[in-house]
């Protein structure tokens, strides 16, 4: 009950503040541009592609690359996954650090709501916003799906991967917000952590070293598999593990607020 009340409160705060609307509008405009470029490229090469047996189709060249540039290479314009590295920290930065600065966190404690329920409620609200953002992004490739052949299984796997990545990043952002004294510090820390998770194995790769541990730690390793259409419980578990650890740390830090202040 309290978890839902906190989630409603956070959703209301998100919907009133301009930040969430501006972020949503700008990123969806950017993704629409990326979609147009990807679709243009696909249409231009359609005849050549049709002649290739088993060649890549609409899903491989338009729908999945819209979610991330990981498989197609090239960075600009960003895919949803790359944008999320920046969007999620901005969206989560005020969730707990803002409450602390505003003096409203003690109000939540004084209602008898345990720290873990506060964290979970905030997390559900941010996750709801991010999943809506993902759905609106997916609406672009789906809007022309009737005119082409869509690989639903592959798209579902890529969507699952994207949702899992958003869930993990949201939890990391929330944990940063729980530890930071100011929202800006929370955003910076969350961005750094997200980037670290993204590129942790890059150095080894550049040096030509195939380090199993570093690869396992890297977010990209697990996301890439799902973007390719392969759903593996080990990859999903990685996202669940990251989210769970971050949420437990956030709840632990928040519970400590009553001791520290």
């Amino acid at each position, binding site marked *: *009950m*309290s978890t*839902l*009340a*906190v989630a*409603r*409160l956070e959703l*209301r*705060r998100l919907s*009133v*503040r301009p930040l969430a609307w501006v972020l949503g509008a700008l990123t969806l405009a950017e993704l629409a541009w990326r979609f147009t470029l990807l679709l243009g490229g696909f249409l231009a090469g359609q005849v050549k592609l049709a002649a290739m047996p088993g060649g890549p189709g609409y899903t491989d060249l338009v729908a999945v690359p819209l979610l991330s540039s990981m498989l197609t290479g090239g960075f600009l314009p960003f895919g949803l996954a790359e944008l999320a590295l920046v969007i999620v920290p901005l969206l989560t930065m005020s969730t707990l650090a803002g409450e602390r600065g*505003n*003096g*409203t966190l*003690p*109000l*939540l*404690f*004084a*209602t*008898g*709501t*345990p720290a873990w329920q506060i964290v979970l409620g905030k997390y559900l609200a941010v996750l709801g916003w991010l999943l809506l953002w993902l759905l609106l992004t997916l609406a672009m490739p789906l809007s022309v799906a009737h005119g082409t052949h869509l690989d639903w299984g592959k798209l579902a796997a890529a969507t699952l991967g994207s949702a899992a990545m958003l869930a993990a990043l949201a939890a990391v952002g929330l944990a940063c917000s729980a530890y930071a004294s100011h929202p800006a510090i929370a955003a910076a820390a969350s961005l750094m952590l997200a980037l670290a998770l993204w590129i942790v194995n890059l150095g080894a790769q550049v040096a030509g070293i195939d380090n199993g541990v570093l690869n396992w730690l890297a977010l990209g390793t697990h996301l890439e598999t799902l973007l390719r259409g392969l759903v593996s419980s080990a990859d999903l578990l990685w996202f669940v593990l990251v989210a769970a650890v971050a949420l437990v740390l956030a709840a632990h830090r928040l519970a400590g607020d*009553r*001791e520290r*202040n």
Partner: protein
Amino acid sequence: MTLPQPLLKLDSVSRRRAGRAAVRDLDLELRRGQVLGLLGVNGAGKSTTLSMIAGALRPDSGRIALDGHDFLERPELAGRLLGWLPERAPLWQELTVGEHLDTHGRLRGLAGNALRQAREAVIERLELQPLVRRLAGVLSQGQRQRLGLACALLHRPALLVLDEPANALDPVQVAALRALIREQAAAGTAVILSTHLLAEVTAVCDRVAILHEGTLRHDGPVANDDHAALERRFFEIAMNGAQARAA
């Protein structure tokens, strides 16, 4: 005849803040229907004490019992039994007055008809009707204070904890606040309010506790015509502390 069990009981409660002892070995009891005034100069430990009673801060040591239960072990009791108006009434700027009441109600387990009725009752009692759709961020300090009070009263708590409730209220609102406190006490609610205004204490409180440098220096009944005696006692405690520091 045995006295009923106190609603609130503090046993040797201590708490350090910013490297100094904000509250030391505080013992305090409060029964249903009693109004206790917590007096003290700035920094005496009043807000720290009330924050601990409200469950927003944990004591470093000691025990707080609420309705016979260990409040530190069962912080969820706050949701049902306790209403708190913190100093300066912090609010969520993005929520309207009505949304504040709904949020506080939901956080305390109210829903549906019960929430609607509780909401209407406090809106009417605190004359918030013209403000219901207004964002908290644009309220005056006096209006914020009234909204904070409404949120604290919404679930009809057994214990009302008010930190400087008369701050920023005009004389008419102060009189209304005093009437509200007496009304709550008459209905059986225990009220603890912190203030540094002696007149506030003599006007509404049955008992007064004077805190100084984190320790309880006085705990006794208040008579309505006792203003001068209370003032003498208060200054004696406050000045002795200052002289002791100077020495």
